[in-house]
C-alpha cells in the first residue's frame, strides 16, 4: 500500500480548474517529487493532501486513511509561504506547534531539546523569533516541521528563499529521513533539484499530470538521444540544423535533443566543419527536456521559470 494515494483528484476555483483529475502514489522510504511550472496546481494539490482545503472530487488516503484532522497529525508540512510568530519565544513557539500536532507537553519538550541541540541552537530557546537572523529562523522552521516525528513529510518549494548553508542542511535532513524509512514528498519548479534527489516524480502542467513514475525508468524510456556539445569557434552551425531542439545554449556549449531519428553523426560532422570540438557526448535527456517534449513547447505556462 502506498503511503500517499491520490486518485482522480479535482479542484476548481470559480472558473479556473486548478487540479484536474490527478492521480499518483508516493511510497514509503522514497522521495517523491512534484514538479511543474508555477501555477500548475502543485500547491493546491499539496494543500488538499494536508486537509487545508477540501477537494471537489476524488480521493486522497494517507496510510489507507482518508484525509482528516487525524491524517494531518501524521504529516510534517512546510508550506511555500512559511513563517513564525515574530513575538513568540523559540521554545514557546515550537511547543505550541508541536502540541497542535497532537504531542503532549513532556514529549514535545524532549523533542524540542533534541532538535535544538542537533542544530546547535539550544541558546535560542528563550529568544524571540523576531530577533533571530533569517538563516536562524529557517532552522527553527525546519524543526517546527519535523518536531512531532511524523511518518510523512511534505515540503512545498522547500529550497526557495533558503541560503546555501540551509539548503544543504535541508537536503541532509531529507536524505536522512528517507534512510529512516519515512515518506517524503516535495514540490519544486527547479528540475535539477529533482534530478539530484528524487526517486519518483510526477510532472504537472495546467492542473493535469502529464507524466508520473520512477525517475530512472522514465529517463531510460526516453533513450540516449541528447547530445552534449562543447566547442570553440563559430556556433552558427547550430542554427542550420533541422529536426533538433536546443535546450541549453551558451557561446561554447549546447544541449541538443535529436528529434525524428536524425543521425547524431550528422551533427558532429557539421560541427567539425565550423568549430573545434572539445566534447561530444550522447546522454539521456534532462528532466527539463522530458517535460518539454511531453507537454509540447506551446502548452507550457511560465516557460522561463523552467530554465533553472
Amino acid at each position, binding site marked *: 500500500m502506498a503511503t500517499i494515494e491520490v486518485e482522480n483528484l479535482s479542484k476548481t*476555483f470559480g472558473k479556473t480548474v486548478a487540479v484536474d483529475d490527478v492521480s499518483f502514489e508516493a511510497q514509503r522510504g522514497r522521495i517523491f517529487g512534484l514538479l511543474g511550472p508555477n501555477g500548475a496546481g502543485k500547491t493546491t494539490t499539496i*494543500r488538499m493532501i494536508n486537509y487545508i482545503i477540501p477537494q471537489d472530487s476524488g480521493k486522497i488516503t494517507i496510510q489507507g486513511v482518508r484525509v482528516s*484532522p487525524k491524517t494531518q497529525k501524521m504529516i510534517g508540512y512546510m508550506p511555500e509561504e512559511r*513563517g513564525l510568530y515574530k513575538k*513568540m519565544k523559540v521554545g514557546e513557539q515550537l511547543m*505550541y506547534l508541536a502540541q497542535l500536532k497532537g504531542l503532549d507537553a513532556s514529549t514535545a519538550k524532549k523533542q524540542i531539546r533534541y532538535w535544538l541541540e542537533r542544530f546547535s541552537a539550544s541558546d535560542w530557546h528563550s529568544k524571540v523569533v523576531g530577533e533571530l537572523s533569517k538563516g536562524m529562523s529557517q532552522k527553527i522552521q525546519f524543526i517546527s516541521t519535523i518536531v512531532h516525528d511524523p511518518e510523512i513529510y511534505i515540503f512545498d518549494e522547500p529550497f526557495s528563499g533558503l541560503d546555501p548553508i540551509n539548503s544543504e542542511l535541508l537536503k541532509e535532513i531529507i536524505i536522512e529521513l528517507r534512510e529512516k524509512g519515512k515518506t517524503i514528498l516535495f514540490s519544486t519548479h527547479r528540475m535539477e533539484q529533482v534530478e539530484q534527489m528524487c526517486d519518483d516524480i510526477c510532472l504537472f502542467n495546467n492542473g493535469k499530470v502529464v507524466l508520473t513514475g520512477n525517475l530512472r525508468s522514465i529517463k531510460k524510456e526516453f533513450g540516449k538521444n541528447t547530445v552534449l556539445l562543447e566547442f570553440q569557434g563559430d556556433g552558427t552551425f547550430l542554427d542550420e540544423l533541422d529536426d533538433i531542439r536546443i535546450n541549453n545554449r551558451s557561446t561554447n556549449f549546447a544541449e541538443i535533443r535529436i528529434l525524428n531519428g536524425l543521425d547524431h553523426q550528422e551533427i558532429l560532422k557539421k560541427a567539425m566543419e565550423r568549430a573545434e570540438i572539445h566534447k561530444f557526448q550522447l546522454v539521456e535527456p534532462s528532466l527539463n527536456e522530458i517535460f518539454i517534449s511531453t507537454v509540447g513547447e506551446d502548452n507550457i505556462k511560465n516557460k522561463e521559470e523552467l530554465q533553472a
Partner: protein
Amino acid sequence: MSWRQVYLVLRREYITRVKSKGFIAATILVPVGFVVLFGIGILISVWESDITFEIGVIDQTEVLAPSLEEMNEERYTDYSDLAEDSLRTLVQQEQITGYMILDEEHITSDKTLELIYSGSGGIQLLNSIQSDMREVIREERLQRAEVSQDIQNIFETSVSLNSRRLTAEGEETEDDTAFFTIVGMAMGFIIFFAIFGYGGYIMRGVIEEKTNRIVEVITSSVKPIELLSGKMVGVGALAITQFGIWIIALVGLSSIAGPLAASMMSDQSAQMQAMGAPEQAELPAFLDIPTIETSLIVYFILFFLLGYILYSSLFAAIGSAADSETDTQQLMMPVTIPIMLAYFIMFHAWRSPDSMLSVISSLVPFFSPIVMITRIAITEVPFWQIGLSMLLMVLTFVGTMWLSAKIYKVGILSYGGTASFKDIAKWIRQ
C-alpha cells in the same frame, strides 16, 4: 471541531496577549486615568470659583450700577466717573475684561445693551451678564412701577421639581434619572469602544498571522473554524480579565476616594460656612452615588459579551481578507457603519429612552449592545424587549459567524493583495 485544538489556540492568544506590554500598559493606565479624572472632578467642584471677569460700568441712571455691584461685587465695578476713552484703554491694557454704558433708556425701553470687551470669558460670561442685567432692570422697573410686595414676590418665584418613581409593587423610590442617564451613556460608550478595541485586536491578530506567513503552518494542524473560535474566545477572555481588573480597581478606589473626598469637602464647607457661604456646603452631586443594581451590571456584561461575539467574528473576517493593516479601511465600512449608527442613536436614546426610534433600534441586533444597555440604565425596559433583543443577537451571531467562517477560511490562505467585496462574495458562495 476538536476542543483540544480550540483550547490550544485560545490559550496562546490569551497568554501572549496578557503578557504583552500594550495590554499591561492599558490595564494600568485606564484606572490611573479614572483616578485623575475623579481627582479633577473633585478639584473643580472644590475650587469652583472661576476666574473673575471684571466689567466696568458707566452708569448714567445712577441706580443700575449699585445694584449690579451689590449682585456681584467681583464682576461689576462702577466707573461712572471715568470717560469712555479711559475704559477703552483699560480694556486694551487688559486691566478689565470689558465695559458697558447704561442709560435711562435701558430701563424705560428694551434698548439693546452693548458690551465692549476683549473677547475672553466666552458664552458663559455673556449669558450671565445678560441674566444679571435682566434681573437688575426688572427690579428697577418693578420699583418704579410701585407694584405691591406681593407682585414683587411673584416675580421672584422659583420652582423646583423633585421626582420619585413609583414601582409596580407600589413603592416609591428615589428617582435618580439624572445619575442613571450618565451611567447609561457611560455603559454605551464603554461597549462602543470595547467592540472597536477588542475587535481591532482580533483583526490585527489575523493580519499578523497572514503577513508572518504562519497561517498555513497552523492550518495544517487546525481547522480554520477552530482557529477562529479559539481567537474569539481567547480575546474574549482577555476582555473579561481586563474588565475584571478595572471593576475591582474602580470599586477599591471609589471606596477609598469617596470618604477621602467627603472629608476634604467637609473641611472646605466648614471654612465656607465660616465665611458665610452656606450654600456651598453641599457635596458635589457625583459623590452622592446611588447604588447601581446588580441586575444592571449583569445586563451590562451580557450585552457587552453579546456585542463582542456579534462583531468580533466580522473583524476576523475583515482581517483575513486584507493584506495589510492599512488596507482595512474600505473593508471596515460594513462593520463601522452599524456601530457608528448605534453610537448616534445612543444620544437620542439617552434623551428619550422610550421613543419609537429608541425602542425599535434597541431591538436591532447590530445596535442592541449599545442602545439597549443605555435604555436599561435610564428607563424601565419591559423584560420581553430585553429578552427579544438578546435572542435576536444570538441568532444574528449564528449568521455572522457562519458568514465570517466562510470568508475567513478562504481569506487566510489568499496572499498578494487585499480582496474586494466582489472577491468576498465569491468566497461566500464557494
